């Protein structure tokens, strides 16, 4: 079974601090990590390989340093890695990103299952996974929390909904976006880390993709930013002080009529 995982490198949000004066993000020294939601996709891909046999190829589109998250993915059990990187991809919104990744996937030697995290922690759009499946014209199931059954032809999966879950049958090839309920990602093994160190990462540019140049990067992106601003801060209110019992009493008094 040919399994493909699409990942994104994102800033490690636990490192992000806010400058109290300018109220902007301090990004100095913030490292890039695998998008947390993609870690579940990588783990599920490796589990599928263990279940059905085959090969896991991890793909990312990003700047040259995104090679690091690909190496990390190899350490976690992926077999091959492709970095899709070119200045021509700069400015891509989700339309152009999913197009570029779909072109890269088509260049690979066939695929049965494509896995993506449900969304990226820095953009939160949840649009690229469905975008890839649409460009490739394959079925998708989003928000997958369990792959109950799978063989060469079809899979039975559980899709998380607001009320519970749906049980969905889908023919292969298909694309899944996965939620964190699907598994607990393993730690990289020593052997994996050794492999990651020496792993050769394939590097593809726009010229390698046979893509329509007009559909790449900023040129291929329907959306653009026109204005940025710092959100109006909500004003802090009253501080209540005293002993525990005193503050509890005062708070109840303050909330009377309003909610209590």
């Amino acid at each position: 079974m040919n399994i493909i995982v699409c990942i994104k490198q994102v800033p490690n949000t636990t490192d992000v601090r806010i400058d109290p004066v300018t109220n902007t993000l301090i990004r100095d020294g913030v490292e890039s990590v695998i998008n947390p939601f993609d870690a579940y996709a990588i783990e599920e891909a490796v589990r599928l390989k263990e279940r059905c046999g085959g090969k896991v190829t991890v793909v990312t589109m990003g700047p040259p340093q995104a090679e690091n998250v690909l190496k990390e993915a190899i350490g976690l059990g992926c077999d091959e890695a492709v970095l899709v990187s070119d200045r021509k991809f700069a400015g891509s919104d989700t339309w152009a990103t999913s197009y570029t990744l779909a072109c890269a996937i088509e260049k690979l030697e066939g695929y049965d299952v494509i896995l993506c995290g449900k969304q990226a922690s820095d953009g939160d759009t949840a649009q690229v996974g469905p975008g890839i499946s649409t460009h490739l014209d394959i079925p998708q199931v989003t928000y997958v929390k369990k792959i109950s059954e799978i063989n060469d032809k079809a899979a039975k999966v559980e899709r998380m909904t607001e009320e519970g879950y749906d049980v969905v049958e889908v023919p292969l090839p298909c694309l899944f976006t996965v939620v964190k309920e699907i598994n607990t990602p393993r730690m990289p093994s020593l052997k994996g880390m050794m492999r990651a160190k020496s792993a050769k990462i394939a590097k593809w540019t726009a010229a390698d993709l046979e893509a329509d140049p007009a559909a790449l990067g900023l040129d291929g992106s329907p959306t653009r930013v026109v204005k940025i601003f710092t959100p109006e801060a909500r004003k802090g209110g009253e501080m209540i002080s005293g002993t525990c019992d005193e503050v509890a009493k005062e708070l109840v008094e303050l909330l009377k009529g309003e909610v209590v």
Partner: protein
Amino acid sequence: MASIKVHLEKCTGCTLCVKACAFGAIHMADRKAVIDMAKCTLCGACVAACKFSAIELEKAAGPKKDLTPYKDVWVFCEQKKGVIQSISYELLGEGRKLADKLGVKLCAVLLGHNMKEAAAKLGERGADKVYLADHPALKAYQDDPYTAVLVNLVEEYKPEAILCGATVIGRSLISRVAIKTNAGLTADCTGLDVDVKERLLLQTRPAFGGNIMATIIAPNHRPQMATVRHKVMKEAELQPGRLAEVVTKSYPEETYASRTRLLDMVEELSATMNISEADIIVAGGRGMGSKENFAQLEELAKVLGGAVGASRSAVDADWIPYSHQVGQTGKTVVPKLYIACGISGQIQHLIGMQSSKTIVAVNKDPDAPIFKVATYGIVGDVNEIVPALIKEFKRALNK
């Protein structure tokens, strides 16, 4: 190929662009902005931030599409088991304002089975027109038939804007439709407005990690598509007797074909209330210290008749399931009362709760950012204050 350049004669060296760049790609040299092309992602944040039009993003002009046939504002109305979901009324409320400003019709789009009556009722929520596709294959959401029908509707009737809920269904569907119709799509908008002259949908959302808001447009593509999270917009008021024109559409059978097959829909009613619907939320963060301490919040929530929420760190520590997470990667909530216990108030959390009517914060760190948004703040040990609050609220509520 697109590129970016600084017009040195216009650059005043004010450094606004340096602050705006989320990628650390701009620095000043001789009081002029210099862009490091190795880091620049052409996101356009600096262009939007520059007050002197000194930075220009050059985009290859694609084939110009005639945008004039596109009119009306559409709302995709989500139904489950034949019941219109409240997100649809929220979008109709917002859509009504946008349609009025643009001077066009507000149209609801409803896909389902045996939904004729429900479709007619959408007029009472502000819709002027309802496009209804009624077919057994549309009874429950499936990607293929829903995408095919919506794409057909868009191509035939050409709306200028479509609003859709940022729900499991909405996000899965509209992403596919945007690709198929070559449209711009902006996720999780927290504010929507229109530029009447240019007929642009101005879509505002948190960007680059959240503490910057970005307004996004799709100037050369139609329809302009946006998703909005549940509870971000106000529901359209019910206007009994208000009528809408219902246009029922049917398509050849192959339009309804689905490669996926829905075998079962399982409802898991959790013992606790869904936090998106709760009027009172008691939420805890890392500062609660342990799973046992966190459990106290459930008691406080029970006394108040509310639900329990959590910050991401409490969820990551396995003190409570993910369905309770509030914030950027969790749910957006707008309760009447939000009590934040041991939550420092990272921006990602604040995004999900700062529209609550009254916010109470309890934290031992007087400098915690949560106090900047709190209506009432208490500095102290949560594990002493929460029991005191339980006692006092019990007394006040005669429990």
